[in-house]
């Protein structure tokens, strides 16, 4: 499944509100399926989260290069994870 253009545009608007410097950036979009291995859960001694496993989520990545005051380039990456309805689940940024 792909995210609709409308949802992508809404996510872009949300991200630009928080990161105006990403205004001209076209994000890449990758779909992921929520999964967790039984071995990992058993190692952590936590129960299987049945309700969410198998759901599809989408990660939109925004990248832009910036110059530091000493002339180096740093790529800033902002990642927004949304569900298939476009609900923003998580936003993270590279350090």
């Amino acid at each position, binding site marked *: 499944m792909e995210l609709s253009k409308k949802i992508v545009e809404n996510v872009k608007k949300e991200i630009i509100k928080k990161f105006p410097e990403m205004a001209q950036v076209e994000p890449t979009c990758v779909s992921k399926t929520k999964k967790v291995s039984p*071995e990992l859960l058993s*190692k952590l001694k936590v129960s299987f989260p049945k309700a969410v496993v198998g759901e599809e989520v989408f*990660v939109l990545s925004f990248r832009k290069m910036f110059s530091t*005051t000493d002339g180096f380039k740093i790529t800033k990456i902002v990642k927004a994870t949304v569900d298939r309805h476009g609900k923003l689940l998580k936003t993270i*940024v590279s350090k």
Partner: protein
Amino acid sequence: MKSVAILVSNEKRLKLKYKKEADAILKKLEKYKTFLTDEAIETRILLTKKIEPSDIREEFSSFEKKYLNRKEVYFLIIGGDDIVPFFKLDNPTDDEDDFIYSDSPYASRDEEYSIPERIVGRLPDINDSEGSDSKFFLSVLDNFIFKHKLKRDGSKSFGYTASVWKKTSKAVYRVIKNGEKLIITPPVTKDNFEKEWIAKKRYLYFNLHGSKETNCWYGQRGFGDPEEYPYFPVAFIPELVKDVGSSVVFSEACYGGYIFGKTDSTAISLKFLTENSDLFIGSSAIAYGPIEPPSTEADLLCKYFFQYVNKGLTYGSAFLNAKIDFAKKMIRTQGFLDEDDIKTLIEFNFFGDPTLRIV
């Protein structure tokens, strides 16, 4: 039953790298063993002949079986990537890192290596293009040999954050004991940074940008900051690391723990070790954090680590427990560990003696 520490190195590789001076390093290992034994930690030296990380990990497992009834078993790797190599793990997430240098698989008995079961630390040496410097390694080993006898300096803590992350940094810093005012960059930069801020502090917390191409960490202008503030100022450089005593340092910077081909003048992490810090935790790759609380990714791992150190756990045990709590929390919140969570778990490495603790 006593805790056990296993000092792991590779004699052949030490001799290949340091020639005659390798003997001095091997003597330091014996001395380290004596000092830890005096501290009631049964200590063994494992001089591996293996080269592949997966084979060395097998040796960890065999060695560990002898001590399963012990309270805690600590593995302390002595040397950098060309002595006891890091694992080079596939990058689980979509960014510019080709692979991740990680000690995480050494801390795991199975292939779910993002979740640790063993306590593993490393005292790295350096390996730059100009050759090997035994002075660095001997000095770091000497620092650590005597650390158990040292009274920990100071009770205050220091925090330094990019302005854009001040809210998220505050959420982390509030768990750090006796935190003084969080310093924000900009307006602070390397040029008006006061070295006394980090002198003889117990905990040092850094939430700055980093790059593997430079020896600096950077700030970032935040929302509402004056336009005349520089956007990405140089915030911190190795020359500022002086008189840091026996501090516990956690840096969330991208590549904050990237030491490959670096020295103590080109990597802040290594500079902290030569200046006698107890511990440096940092990332070997691009690290992530949230833009506002609640804490996730590097912020959350750091927060949990300091909470456990405050409780009096050894640094190694605090790091292990922080990773487990991080994974549990993200599964509770999201229902799974996403790729960025897994990257966070495997990219942060522990440079220091895991048997130490704040007394």
